[in-house]
């Protein structure tokens, strides 16, 4: 929760940097004092004291020495103050002891080695009214710390900022601002970096194709570790080891940064992959060789080199993006530019004195940029994921479609196969019928002494053939069917000496199912047989037409007609019932009108569509 609040603070409080307390006229900013070397419990009372201006940076004022120093600052109180007074110190590195008019007031950190490197924490010490005197008061401050040469970064070298003395309240405001700038914001950023960095490291580690994420995560985590001094001031290790460890982090950071930029630009090189870890090993060894007391110089040199490497990688990355016309060129360019400026400020601060605010801001901006780049990466990653999701969905859909297609094809194939098998089976049955049944019937036809049996066998043979045809046959064009029927009816009637008047329309596009064709053939054949055998007619008129989707066939003869029996049945073994039955099977009907002396009329009506549908 505090992390979120920290992040919120970072975003909400970062811009308004107008320092409200600095302008407070009530506060006295003491920039001058006395300094004397000494390790005793009190300000040394000899003449070795010399005047100094605060801030006093040991690196400048006494570069070689590392021994404790006493500072004496005097201030006057015109009258007994109404409000509580206090002294506020922006920066006292590393540990100090504060005495007011000779009385010990406050102690911050360890006064013996290893000192507590709590350099970024501002201090606010209230001055007890009982110890304050009207007129001149003396503040003695004993400072211990490490010389610049013995630390990796200038920010950890011993120094004392000006002392602000005044009423407690405005000093509290000043304290809050400095604490926010120097402690809380960096802490919040560090925590954010640790978290996002860790997250992205895992992400990149799991997604080997997005290795740049892993490097970026490593960079963020490393940066957060570099700022670990904000959290842990007292390491259970010798100072030299801590400094070496911190310094050793730098090439690792550079490794991560360079690799991140290169991988992000989709480029990798074996030599670089190898050189960067080697460098990370080489740097601590050179530092070890230099010794703990001459740390700063080599670290500075190395830092410059590492900064150059990162800058080169950044330029390479930007050039790639520019060439690819990538939209992230401007965003990443701006972010990297800020990083470069901050790096420049940091580097400059190692050599010259820069305003505290500028240093604090640059120290804040760097991790902030890292967080922003991290957010950008997360955004890109999730966009890519989304895209992958979309394309996966598309792919899935396509696969589904293809599967459906295959299934459909397979089904069609199976159906076709079934059809083929059925067709083959039908042909086999048909052949069997012809060969066995047909042969036997044929033998009966030609060997039977009885005409009646011959005729019956012949009819059975014809029936069998028609059945086979219905079994195997395809749909027949109506025009072709009419041709077949005409040829049969006319030639049969002609042989019997009966004249035929056949009328049918030309060019009929409709088709009949094999079944309808066969059944109609049978009906017509039966009707023709009846006329030849029973009617005694001399003329037969056959009229065909297609009307209202129905096929109509009318067979009319001028014969004797069929006389009604007393029981009213028309059928007298003439197959009339069978004819009707057959028409019914085709969803049609067969009407027979007949009367003695009036001939016979057979009206067959078949619905063409249904006749088509039938198998």
């Amino acid at each position, binding site marked *: 929760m505090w992390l979120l609040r920290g992040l919120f603070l970072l975003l909400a409080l970062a811009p308004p940097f107008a320092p409200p307390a600095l302008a407070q006229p009530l506060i006295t900013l003491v920039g001058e004092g006395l300094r004397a070397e000494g390790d005793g419990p009190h300000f040394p009372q000899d003449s070795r004291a010399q005047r100094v201006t605060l801030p006093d940076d040991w690196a400048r004022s006494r570069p070689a020495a590392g021994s404790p120093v006493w500072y004496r600052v005097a201030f006057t109180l015109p009258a007994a103050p109404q409000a509580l007074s206090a002294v506020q110190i922006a920066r006292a590195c590393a540990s100090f002891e504060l005495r007011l008019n000779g009385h010990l007031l406050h102690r911050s950190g360890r006064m013996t080695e290893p000192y507590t490197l709590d350099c970024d924490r501002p201090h606010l010490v209230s001055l007890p009214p009982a110890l304050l005197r009207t007129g001149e008061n003396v503040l003695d401050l004993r400072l211990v710390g490490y010389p610049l040469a013995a630390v990796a970064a200038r920010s950890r070298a011993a120094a004392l900022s000006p002392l602000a003395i005044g009423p407690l309240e405005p000093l509290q405001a000043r304290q809050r601002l400095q604490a926010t700038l120097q402690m809380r914001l960096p802490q919040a950023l560090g925590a954010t970096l640790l978290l996002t960095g860790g997250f992205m490291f895992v992400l990149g580690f799991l997604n080997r194709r997005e290795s740049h994420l892993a490097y970026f995560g490593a960079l963020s985590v490393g940066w957060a570790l570099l700022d670990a001094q904000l959290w842990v001031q007292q390491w259970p290790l010798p100072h030299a080891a801590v400094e070496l460890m911190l310094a050793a982090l730098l090439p690792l950071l550079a490794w991560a940064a360079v690799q991140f930029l290169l991988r992000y630009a989709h480029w990798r090189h074996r030599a670089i992959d190898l050189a960067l870890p080697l460098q990370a090993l080489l740097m601590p060894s050179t530092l070890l060789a230099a010794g703990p007391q001459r740390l700063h110089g080599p670290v500075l040199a190395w830092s410059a080199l590492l900064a150059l490497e990162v800058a080169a990688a950044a330029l390479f990355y930007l050039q790639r993006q520019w060439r690819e016309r990538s939209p992230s060129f401007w965003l990443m360019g701006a972010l990297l530019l800020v990083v470069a400026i901050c790096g420049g400020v940091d580097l400059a601060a190692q050599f010259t004195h820069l305003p505290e605010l500028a240093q604090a801001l640059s120290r804040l901006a760097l991790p902030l940029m890292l967080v922003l780049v991290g957010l950008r990466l997360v955004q890109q990653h999730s966009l890519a994921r989304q895209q992958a999701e979309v394309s996966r969905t598309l792919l899935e859909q396509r696969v589904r479609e293809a599967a459906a297609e295959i299934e459909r094809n397979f089904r069609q194939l199976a159906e076709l196969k079934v059809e083929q098998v059925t067709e083959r089976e039908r042909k086999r049955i048909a052949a069997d019928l*012809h060969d066995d049944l047909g042969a036997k019937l044929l033998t009966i036809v030609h060997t039977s002494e009885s005409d009646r049996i011959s005729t019956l066998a012949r009819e059975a043979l014809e029936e069998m053939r028609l059945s086979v045809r219905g079994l195997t046959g395809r749909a027949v064009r109506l025009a072709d069917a009419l041709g077949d029927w005409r040829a049969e009816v006319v030639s049969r009637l002609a042989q019997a000496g009966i004249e035929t008047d056949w009328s049918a329309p030309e060019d009929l596009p409709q088709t009949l199912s094999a079944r309808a064709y066969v059944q109609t053939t049978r009906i017509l054949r039966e009707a023709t047989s009846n006329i030849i055998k029973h009617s005694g007619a001399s003329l037969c008129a056959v009229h065909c037409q297609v009307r209202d989707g129905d096929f109509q066939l009318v067979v009319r003869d001028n014969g004797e007609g069929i006389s009604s029996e007393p029981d009213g049945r028309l059928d007298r073994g003439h197959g009339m019932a069978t004819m009707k039955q057959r028409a019914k099977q085709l969803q049609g009907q067969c009407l027979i009108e007949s009367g003695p002396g009036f001939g016979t009329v057979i009206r067959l009506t078949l619905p063409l569509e249904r006749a088509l549908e039938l198998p």
Partner: protein
Amino acid sequence: MKNILLLEDLPEIRAWLRKLVLQVFPTAQIAEGARVADALALVTAVKFDLALVDLGLPDGSGVDVVTKLRDVQPECQSVVVTIHDDDEHLFPALQAGAFGYILKEQPRELITEQLQRISQGEPPLSPSIARRVMAHFASTAKPRADATLINVSLTERESEVLLRVAKGYTLPEIGVQLGLSRHTIADYVKQIYRKLNVSSRAEAALEAQRLGLFGR
């Protein structure tokens, strides 16, 4: 008619056919066979004037015999005697060179009449066979790349006759309609059968050549 080949696997039917043939051609010498192999052997040995060939035989199809006869004895008339009346079965035999067909179950009188007609050069032609012939010539009428093959096509009159047969008109009716004698119509039909055979052979040769080209 002197030498007649009778190829039929059913003994009763063969005997019956023999009687029938002797009725029509009392002086004929009849060589009988029950299998394709018998017939092929006979064909190389004896010269026939007429061959009655059943299609469905135990060791193959009568079509092979028709083909062989057409090859070695082109002046012999092959007539298919079959139980199959559909063009599916008949057409290949006609393409192979059969000069007509007789349906076995028809009454004796009808068969003798048909046999007489065929021997006099009046082969039967059913509507479905006519349609198949028309379809055959329609498919071969397409222009060919190789002009070496004889391009057989029907004359206008022949086509006219075929079309009318397909519509169900009997040959005498067509004769009346076209104002032609029964003999002329029969000649047309004979011509159609002949052309069907020639065209089919050309077709087969073309197919063989094509396969040969591919096989090479």
